């Protein structure tokens, strides 16, 4: 089971590129797709979900070109878009039943599957309430359930934890991890902690281009020796932010503890620190900006 992205590009009317020469080969596991806002994550997701056609390159599901035969992928695809709607006069069960019909699930199977998924996303008690009365987090959980209806082999989730409370967010991360064994999951987000908890591989994207692709451990290793911490007077912080890539600050009684990404100790007395995924992410994105 492979998803192969070969030099894919997407050009919008007006000539701007949302994605350029993007190549990646995916096998079962969770790929965390990280990038700043406007990096091209959603464009890539939409191409992979057969919603949008690539302007250049191609995407193959196993050996099938999804632009030519999109239905080969659609029958095994689960997709949670970043921004999706619901039919507000349907209740959760009816909406999922409708989507199940669109996905071609048999009636008995759909009924059973919907029961299981409503339980999974904690909406059993709300199953008969019209979706128009749902909060944002509850709608998001309906979205998660619809993506899992057909037991997808390729699961694409775009900013899936938006609107979820911390408890539901943790539940969803756990769910992704447990689902990842026999399928390819692509998790697009700009929340590094979501990726940190679930991803087996991480792809960094900026300005439509692939910046890096590696296992989380490799990314962490790449940032080793480049993260520094020190304490400095608060009034000097603003000037320091202009000069360095600051990844964190913490107020203390004697000033502010600063954490920065830099190839060498940025100030006398700075101590090397163990890098986090966020440090590695900032380092790679900053490097890609510098080289652009």
């Amino acid at each position: 089971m492979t998803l192969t992205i070969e030099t894919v590009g997407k050009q919008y009317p007006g000539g701007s590129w949302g994605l350029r020469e993007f190549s990646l080969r995916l096998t079962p596991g969770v790929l965390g797709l990280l990038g700043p806002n406007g990096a091209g994550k959603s464009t890539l997701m939409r191409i992979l979900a057969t919603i949008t056609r690539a302007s250049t390159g191609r995407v193959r599901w196993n050996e099938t070109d999804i632009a030519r035969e999109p239905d080969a992928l659609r029958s095994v695809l689960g997709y949670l878009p970043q921004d999706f709607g619901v039919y507000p006069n349907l209740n959760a069960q009816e909406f999922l039943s409708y989507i199940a019909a669109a996905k071609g699930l048999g009636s008995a199977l759909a009924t059973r599957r919907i029961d299981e998924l409503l339980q999974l996303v904690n909406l059993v008690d709300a199953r008969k309430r019209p979706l128009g009365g749902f909060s944002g987090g509850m709608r998001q959980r309906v979205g998660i359930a619809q993506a899992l209806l057909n037991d997808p082999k390729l699961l694409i989730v775009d900013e899936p934890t938006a609107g979820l409370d911390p408890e539901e967010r943790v539940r969803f991360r756990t769910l992704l991890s447990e689902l990842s064994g026999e399928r390819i999951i692509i998790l697009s987000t700009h929340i590094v902690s979501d990726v940190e908890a679930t991803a087996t591989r991480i792809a960094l994207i900026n300005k439509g281009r692939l910046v890096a692709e590696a296992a989380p451990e490799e990314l962490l290793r790449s940032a080793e020796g480049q993260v520094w911490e020190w304490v400095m007077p608060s009034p000097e912080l603003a000037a320091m932010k202009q000069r360095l890539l600051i990844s964190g600050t913490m107020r203390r009684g004697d000033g502010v503890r600063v954490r920065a990404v830099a190839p060498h100790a940025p100030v006398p007395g700075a101590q090397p620190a163990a890098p986090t995924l966020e440090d590695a992410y900032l380092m790679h994105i900053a490097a890609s900006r510098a080289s652009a």
Partner: protein
Amino acid sequence: MNLPTALRMARADFQERSRRFSFLAMIAISLYAGYGFLPPNHAAYATLRFAEHRGIYNSAWVGAAIAMLTATFVSLVGYYLIKNAVERDRVTRVGHILAATPISRFEYVLSKTLSNFAVLGSIALAVALSAGVTQLVLGEDTNLQFTRLLAPYLFLTLPSMLFLAAIAALFEVTPGLRGGGGNVAYFFLWTIGLAASGTGMRASGFDYVGFGLVFPSMTEACGAVYPDCGSGQQRFALGLNFSERGVWNLTTFVWPGIEWTAGIAVKRAVWVLAAIGVVWLASLVFDRFSSEGGEAPGRLPRPWGRRKRAASDAEAEEAPEPDRPSFSGHYPIAALPSPTQRAVPGTHFMRLLAAELRLMMKGASRWWYIVLFGLWVASALTPLDAARRFVLPVIWIWPVLLWSSMGIREIRFGTDQILFSSPHPLRLQVPAVWLGGVAVALVTGGVIGLRLLVTGEFGGLLAWFVGACFIPALALALGVWSGSSRAFEGLYTGLWYAGPLQPIAPIDFMGASRAAVDAGTPLVFAMVTAALLVLALIGRRRQLQN
């Protein structure tokens, strides 16, 4: 009231609208209309005539004729074009931001009215300027006088358009009128209003279009040359008049125009004042995007019935969440069994069709079914000819708001990405949506269809069946291509009124009259249905390949 604020908002709103492709398309159509409104001699149709005569195409005649024609036609079509100013703020949620600003309700409604007015004024100006060029091209009088050409635009068209702009804003902020019900209701309001305005107010010159200001002078000029159109004859016709002889052979006379005086300006100012009154009324009704009566973005309007549930996001926030198990005791995810059976060939389509039908019927309330039951009873008890002629048209206007959501639901409610990434969005989903609409038509009109079958009226039965297929095909094609329900609601209501209700045989798509069946209209509409389905498929394919 802060007028500059309203003007700034109106300008921004107009900028947003004028930068859309649809606006350019509207202007292009308007330019063509300016040409089409001035048919040359021996054309198959006439637009303004007095018996068998018309004025020579000089700037005075062209300006006045175009102003009246524009005010008449744009007051119908224009409504459906502009009635989305407040809706856009609801859908984009900009309304929620605006509601939190100090802008007053009156200022907000006024800004939307002025934006509507700018769109309508642009359309009318394009028609007028195009007509001026047409005057030169036709060459009956090559002396182009801009004052005479554009004074009627200023005095006749613009006040009418301002009033229409305010009416559209009023409908948009009024619960029950902002959706499809209002779109259908407006058609009848336009028909009745124009007729009432024409007969009751024309003599005083206060009528909506301004007929009463211009026609007496035109009639007098015509009567001076041709006695059959003198005063009191009232044999004028304005609109698209097709000649029974194939082409018109109208003789011409010279109409020098009228003096556009301050008195006329005062009479027309009545409609400006009326527009302000409508804006004021609308500001009283406007809910400022609050929960009561306001539809939260992305909500399906319940066209015919009650609201079962809390409508707003605010209420949704207050809605209790189900009891949540502690995290440690959460549902064991790994135990979620995998489906052992995926798509079932053959049943996939039937399941999808049933789902589409269920979704469509969700918009119908209990009252909707009660009225339908009454119509079924009327279908059964009325003599068959009368049932076809009068009951069937009523039956097939009743589900108009169910049909009008076809082809647009996915985009309107944001489920497009989910559905378009499901298997066979073209081959299965589009036919399922259409057949769902056909099923609604067949079931609602079923009693009459059954009677036609039993009595052996196979011609009528064919027309009935074609009608049942045509209506959803029209809804689907217009929905997919326009992205809005207004196109279908406006066009279908007009077609329904002119075709089956009048009836005009060539456009009686449901065969309400025997003449339509004899004229072969069902066969024409069968072909039109096929073409519409192809168009719908092409449109959906285009959306999929975006």
